[in-house]
């Protein structure tokens, strides 16, 4: 993977897309192979949004902006089309709107490598398109992204599709912890 490139992880359910992303993010131990990237550059976004229903959108974003010490949230909010929602409570939003708030966090981190696990769940068509554009912009700013998804994000030539099924067949092995007992 180079800067300015995106990888799309494909493969049927249970093939290990989430596991791979979590391992890359440093949440899970890696059983084989190496990661050539500092954990400080990686931003992971999973199935769950990590936004609090009792707080407003603004409070949620401000919190993450603080954690990643990035200054302003208004720019990012505009990009992700949630600027009108800033003052409403997340609990009152629809699933798609909530997802957008969750994704907006990516823009706040200022990190180069985005690891996205099913980012487009519950987004409508226009939001998907906008999100695709955001990723393109991120790529053109020398970032890179690894995305597990089944939907076409419109990244065309920038994206390199990685089908995990092949690797699964090649390396169908036991976990280390089981191996010790054989």
């Amino acid at each position, binding site marked *: 993977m180079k800067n300015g490139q995106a990888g799309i992880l494909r493969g049927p359910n249970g093939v290990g897309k989430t596991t791979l992303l979590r391992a890359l993010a440093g949440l899970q131990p890696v059983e084989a192979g190496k990661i050539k990237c500092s954990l400080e550059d990686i931003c992971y976004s999973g199935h769950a949004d990590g936004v609090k229903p009792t707080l407003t959108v603004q409070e949620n974003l401000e919190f993450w902006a603080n*954690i990643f010490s990035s200054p302003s949230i208004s720019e990012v909010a505009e990009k992700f089309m949630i600027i009108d929602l800033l003052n409403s409570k997340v609990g009152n939003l629809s699933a798609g709107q909530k997802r957008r708030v969750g994704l907006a966090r990516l823009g706040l981190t200022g990190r180069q490598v985005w690891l996205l696990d099913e980012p487009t769940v519950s987004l409508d068509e226009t939001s998907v398109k906008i999100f695709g554009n955001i990723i393109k912009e991120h790529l053109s700013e020398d970032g890179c992204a690894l995305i597990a998804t089944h939907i076409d994000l419109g990244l065309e030539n920038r994206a390199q599709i990685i089908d995990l099924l092949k690797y699964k067949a090649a390396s169908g092995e036991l976990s280390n912890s089981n191996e010790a007992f054989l």
Partner: protein
Amino acid sequence: MIALIIRDLRISVRAGGGFGLSLAFFFIIVIFFPFAIGPDLDLLSKVAPGTLWVGALLACLLSLERIFALDFEDGTLDLLATSSLPLESVVISKALVHWLTTGLPLVLLTPFFGILLGLQNSNIIFLIISLIFGTPALSIIGTFGAALTAGMKRGGLLLSILVLPLYIPTLIFGAEAARRGIQGFETQNSMLLLLGVSLLSWAILPFAAASVLRINLR
């Protein structure tokens, strides 16, 4: 870290945050003891330090499960773990918020509850000091227990079984200090030991809790 503390405080005072639940629980325990023991104020004042200590401990226990459960479910914990904030400071913030929303209000209300149990002289100050020293230990030990059971279904009961034995030294020293103080004996030794337990817990448990959290996030 401060941002995390502020956010958690905000969540806990918003609707459904559970702030006040453990206070109400504490209040009810204090009221129920006279019902069980009888209205004799002399007798009540003798058991009052122990009652208030056990009450505080149970009230603490009640709110432990919430410390990590919500953040674990909605993925916040994953995100925090991948952020530049070390998990140790996440643990410390969580424990601090737990103390601010549970321990501190309990300490502040103790003088009033003491009156209900016949503790009406100025010696109640010893009880309050012992709670000030002891409740932080309850919070951090509880946070460790919550980290241990984060992500488990039916973790609540397990959490109590794991945490209660760890509470024993704090309870013994704390209640001892309060009892001695109220009966007019010197309390220096037990207070210092209580403080020692608190400081020791705060020194070692953030690391243990963070390592356990990492294991649970795998």
